[in-house]
């Protein structure tokens, strides 16, 4: 193509995100993170090996609908002629749209969709930055095991409560496997429709079963409703652990107030991590868009750096070369890449399925820090916020 002599002035990156429909809120946050990262990279001189070419993002709305996502991918590839696609937040959209990219042999970077199977189909052009969802449940159980030892608390029974979508049911499957492995008794396995108008019946059920630990997988709205209803109905447990998603949404803390205190959540990232660049970036993001960075935004933010790095090394906009460059990615903290320096783990490197093999997870607890509810990293202990330790069992 025209990449030879002067190189292109602009490099088009396609982004598929849910900008309307039920997951529009997170879709928008991802979009903003991508825009901010792109701006920074372009300001720093763009892709130098391509003559300082600027990255240009083309956003298309998937509505969270796979069919729309597929059409969007085709449109990005054929009409917009993007060299690479990034997206699509909803696993259900990522799944078929990566298939399209694979057919056209266009690289597809997946910042956040966590469904295991996305990188388990032998695709050559799909690369995922976030951890697989099976890795998340690992951390939840690791944490429990450690706390059992540490505090001598007896934990025998568990309740699984999750939204009945793709994600929640996937998590529940993992939970069951691990509960069996570690010898917990599952007293309640309850999926609920994520559009429920009333979750009191579910909460009533939890109350009857009196589980030691409640594992939750929820979207934002239902996480809020569930937590508030549990408080109203006076449900108590030794530990309530969320699985990111809704619990990580800033709206969750804002809208549950005191009710979420001492709850746990797993997350790929947190603002209080001990990385020096985080405060400044978070402040900038917050000033611009009105809320804190979240794990998913950070993945999206980092993904732009991964893409830029691959382009830099590919020295070309030929999709095949970009793919090879992506496959050879090795970006680590301390190389002066802002997007990488803020991660909770040390390097991004893809295994042969395209999965970032270092992607890590942390456990946070909602704590009242000087009058405001904050997410405090408590596990693994080496990245925990200084001076904080998990309160376990929940009081």
């Amino acid at each position, binding site marked *: 193509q025209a990449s030879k002599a002067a190189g292109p002035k602009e490099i088009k990156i396609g982004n598929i995100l849910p900008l309307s429909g039920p997951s*529009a809120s997170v879709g928008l946050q991802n979009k903003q993170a991508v825009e901010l990262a792109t701006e920074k990279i372009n300001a720093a001189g763009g892709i130098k090996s391509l003559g300082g070419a600027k990255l240009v993002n083309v956003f298309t709305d998937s509505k969270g609908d796979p069919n729309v996502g597929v059409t969007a991918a085709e449109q990005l590839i054929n009409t917009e002629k993007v060299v690479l696609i990034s997206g699509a937040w909803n696993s259900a959209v990522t799944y078929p749209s990566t298939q399209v990219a694979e057919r056209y042999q266009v690289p597809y970077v997946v910042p956040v969709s966590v469904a295991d199977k996305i990188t388990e189909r032998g695709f050559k052009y799909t690369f995922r930055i976030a951890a697989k969802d099976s890795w998340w449940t690992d951390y939840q159980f690791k944490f429990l095991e450690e706390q059992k030892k540490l505090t001598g608390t007896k934990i025998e029974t568990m309740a699984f409560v999750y939204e009945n979508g793709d994600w929640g049911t996937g998590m529940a499957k993992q939970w069951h496997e691990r509960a069996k492995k570690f010898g917990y008794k599952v007293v309640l396995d309850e999926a609920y*429709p994520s559009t*429920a108008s*009333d979750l009191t019946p*579910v909460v009533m059920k939890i109350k009857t079963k009196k589980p030691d630990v409640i594992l939750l997988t929820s979207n934002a709205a239902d996480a809020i409703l569930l937590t508030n209803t549990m408080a*109203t109905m006076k449900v108590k447990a030794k530990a309530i652990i969320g699985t990111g998603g809704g619990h990580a949404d800033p709206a969750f803390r804002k809208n549950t107030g005191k009710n979420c205190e001492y709850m746990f959540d797993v997350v790929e990232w947190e603002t209080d991590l001990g990385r020096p660049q985080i405060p400044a970036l978070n402040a900038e993001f917050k000033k611009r868009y009105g809320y804190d960075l979240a794990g998913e935004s950070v993945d999206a933010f980092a993904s732009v750096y991964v893409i830029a790095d691959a382009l830099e090394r590919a020295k070309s906009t030929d999709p095949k070369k970009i793919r090879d460059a992506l496959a050879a990615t090795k970006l680590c903290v301390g190389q002066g890449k802002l997007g990488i320096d803020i991660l909770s783990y040390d390097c991004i490197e893809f295994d042969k399925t395209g999965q970032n093999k270092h992607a890590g997870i942390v456990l946070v607890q909602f704590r009242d820090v000087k009058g405001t509810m904050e997410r405090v990293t408590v596990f693994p202990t080496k990245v925990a916020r200084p001076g904080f330790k998990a309160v376990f069992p929940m009081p």
Partner: protein
Amino acid sequence: MDFDIILQAIINGLLTGSYYGLAALGLTLIFGVIKVINFAHGSLLMVGMFTAYWIVKLTGWNPYAALLVVVPLLFLFGYGLQGFLIKPVLIAQRDVREPTEVIIVTTGVWYILDNLALMLFGAEYRVVQTSVSGQIFMLGDYIFPKPQLYGFIITAATSFLLVWFLKYTKMGKAIRAASLDRDAASLMGINQYRVYNIAFGIGAAIAGIVGCVLIPFYYVFPTVGVVFDVKCFIIVVLGGLGSIPGALVGGAIIGLIESIFAQFIASTWTELIVYVVFLAVLFIRPAGLFGEKRDW
């Protein structure tokens, strides 16, 4: 199963069912009078919720004080909606008893309102802490969440007022007359379209009331109406389209099914039970529990 639990489930079911019923009430009124399925009903509820949300958020009022603003506002909104958008289609379909094509208009309004809200407020979920949020009232060991309890009382009061209005006031009678025979109503000096506007306005105002009732314990977001839409449709058909007691009883039935069955089976399946019960009732009583067979 524990008797206490069942009783608590019944309490929850009735409290929940009451605001379901209230949400369905506006829908059934609009259908009864104008014979239009208002697919924008959930969106009106959303508008009511957002209004109440902002009022409470900005002024810190008691959420029920927001009714003073929400009710007139939604009334005017519904009034205008019917007057400007639905009326032209009704005029074009003057001879049709149930102008089904109007659903396109009401669905269009639904899309527009939901997405305008998205553009204005973003997709995030918002909850506002009100003076009654999270408070409970205990009767023995039984928990009555106060916001739901107040919702129950407001439902009862609203239904009573509506029935009284339709039965005893001049405008109420005119509304009923126009719903039975619009041309004949014209010949009595009733401006049928104004009557429709008012009926639609009242229906919208009731949706607004539901918004205020929900604010203390539910969250607001642009597509919140969709959560209640399908439920409302089931309730009104179950109870009998156009029937006020039908909406209330239908709401209670759905609330109870959800609450009680969830104690025995997975709550995703209770949704299915709702549909099964709904279809079963239709097989037995095609006009719904309180439907007037000869009228439809």
